[in-house]
């Protein structure tokens, strides 16, 4: 191993890669623009759509209740619901999104209530359709208030206290600081994006520097120079690692700025801001997420370099790396699932451990024992992957598997 030669190879590979459009796109353009584009076109757009849906006055049909002018009048008087004439194909109209919901009432609803009996009401909706869901919420609220009024009237009629039917009051209160409330939602997403991008940023350079050399016939040229194969693979590895880390760094920077900007925009929209979402990551969290991603970037770089070297052609390398992407993303996705919490055993599972600890870091929780364990275990996995890559570079059957 010769440090001078490693530096020479690294410098050449960096220059070579920066002249390659595909590497520049995966290493620089994607991490910078992916998050803003996703946020602007998906996040803010969906926030606006939700806002618009909440403000919309939905059309609703009342089925039945012919002999109940009281409830019909009350429903028609609702300010944020428009009652339209009933038709027999109301269910189809809900599916066709011509109306958002239908309320099915017994014809003698008023009489049933007056008798002191229970009336059955059904709200027909299109489950999963956002406007229909919001309409159902409005109707539920109406009937909840209506029911409470009736209870109150019936209790008054019998001179009974209201406490009789409400023996327990249950209240839910958030005691977590705002950044942690936001962290639960966004914390899972930040490392997920960073890891995806540090992996995708590695892919193209790893293939270009290995199987790309085989395809272009430059592998024989470099192998006849006096550089040792260990120095050669380390020089190439450093370049792939640079691509991975710079992609991760740019992704984190871009994400931080985007979330800050999105926070302002959403507060402007006025809907999500009220739900307690926190659109900021502290600089300390940014640094620690990056530190935790570093050994993972080494692991990705070495593993992808080894796998790509093993392939005969670019196409073969792509067919190896595509399923690997899914394999790598699965633990990252698991970390976003609610209820998956960091523990000693999960701290040893690569990718999942980094994803979980990053989620905690973004939400402001620093479990230093887990951070040390995860960083250490990730370093071990990374070293093993690098050792495999170095060994593969010594094997003629791999280098000349053409």
């Amino acid at each position, binding site marked *: 191993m010769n440090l001078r030669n490693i530096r020479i190879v690294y410098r*050449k590979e960096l220059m070579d890669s920066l*002249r390659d459009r595909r590497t520049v796109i995966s290493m620089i353009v994607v991490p910078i623009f992916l998050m803003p584009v996703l946020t602007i076109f998906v996040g803010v757009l969906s926030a606006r759509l939700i806002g618009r849906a909440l403000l919309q006055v939905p059309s609703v049909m009342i089925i039945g209740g012919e002999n109940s002018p009281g409830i019909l009048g009350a429903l028609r008087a609702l300010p944020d619901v428009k009652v339209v004439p009933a038709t027999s194909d109301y269910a189809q109209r809900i599916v066709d999104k011509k109306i958002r919901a239908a309320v099915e009432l017994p014809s003698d609803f008023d009489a049933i209530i007056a008798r002191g009996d229970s009336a059955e009401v059904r709200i027909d909706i299109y489950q999963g359709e956002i406007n229909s869901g919001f309409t159902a919420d409005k109707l539920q609220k109406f009937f909840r208030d209506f029911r409470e009024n009736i209870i109150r009237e019936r209790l008054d009629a019998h001179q009974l206290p209201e406490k009789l039917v409400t023996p327990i009051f249950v209240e839910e209160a958030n005691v977590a600081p705002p950044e942690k409330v936001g962290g639960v939602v966004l914390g899972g997403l930040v490392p997920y994006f960073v890891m995806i991008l540090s992996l995708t940023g590695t892919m193209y350079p790893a293939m270009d520097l290995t199987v790309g050399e085989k395809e*272009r016939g*430059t592998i024989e*040229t470099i192998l006849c120079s*006096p550089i*040792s194969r260990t120095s050669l693979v380390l020089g190439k590895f450093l370049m792939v690692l640079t691509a991975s880390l710079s992609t991760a760094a740019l992704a984190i920077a871009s994400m931080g700025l985007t979330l800050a900007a999105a926070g302002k925009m959403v507060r402007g929209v006025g809907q999500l801001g009220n739900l307690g979402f926190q659109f900021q990551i502290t600089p300390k969290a940014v640094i620690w997420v990056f530190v935790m991603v570093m050994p993972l970037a080494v692991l990705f770089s070495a593993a992808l370099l080894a796998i790509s070297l093993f392939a005969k052609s670019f196409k073969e390398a792509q067919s190896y790396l595509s399923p690997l992407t899914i394999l790598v993303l699965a633990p990252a996705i698991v970390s976003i699932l609610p209820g998956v919490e960091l523990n000693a055993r999960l701290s040893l599972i690569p990718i999942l451990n980094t994803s979980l600890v990053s989620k905690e870091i973004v939400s402001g929780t620093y479990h230093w024992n887990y951070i040390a364990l995860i960083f250490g275990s990730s370093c071990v996995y990374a070293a093993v992957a690098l050792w495999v890559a170095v060994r593969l570079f010594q094997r003629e*059957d791999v280098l000349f598997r053409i």
Partner: protein
Amino acid sequence: MIVAESLGKEFRARKRGAIRAVEKLSFSCTPGQIYGLLGAIGAGKTTALRMLATILAPTSGTASVAGFDIRRDPEKARQNSGFLSTATALYGRLTALEMVEYFGSLYGLDSATVRRRTLALFERLDISSIRDRRCEDLSTGMKQRVSIARTLVHDPPVMIFDEPTSGLDVISARTIVAFIRECRASGKTVVFSTHVMSEAEKLCDKIGIIHDGRLLAEGSLAELRSRYGYADLEEIFVRVVSA
């Protein structure tokens, strides 16, 4: 100087089992001499030369290149040799100058020496005008000249050429042939493989006929002619490999 002693190479293929590409190959080549390995495609020439260039490791025997054993001192052997074949391509996104300087620095030369030698070689090979053009934009002939500069930048005492004119047009092939002659004239040890009889006749001081990985006959062109009774090298070759 190159001395090959019972050099052998066996590949293990999953379906075909063990394949002996080169078997007990022994020959020597002295400074100022061109040794030609003549053989059909698949005879084992490329494997033999790749072993001399230390790109492949022998499974038996050994060789010394410029006094360095290819098994014990592969890096020193590479340091003192230049290897050129049609398979040794250039880095397309580097300029001609960057390409040659990159290899010069890998050979341990300091940047001032690399620059001086590269510019002198470009001048000699008449490619100074394309020094800042990317290799991917060069014609085949220009690429070959840049490759020559790449093999010569460290001024090695030993040159190894594996079918260097294969697939080249007449003009580019002539450039290579002239370059090989220059190497001999400057006292370098030259080993050269080809399946083109006329090239071997024109260039080689000593010819080794290789078939199925084994050296079947060796000698100067005059020696081979008198031994086999044919003036035409092609006839000699056919006689040797079909015997």
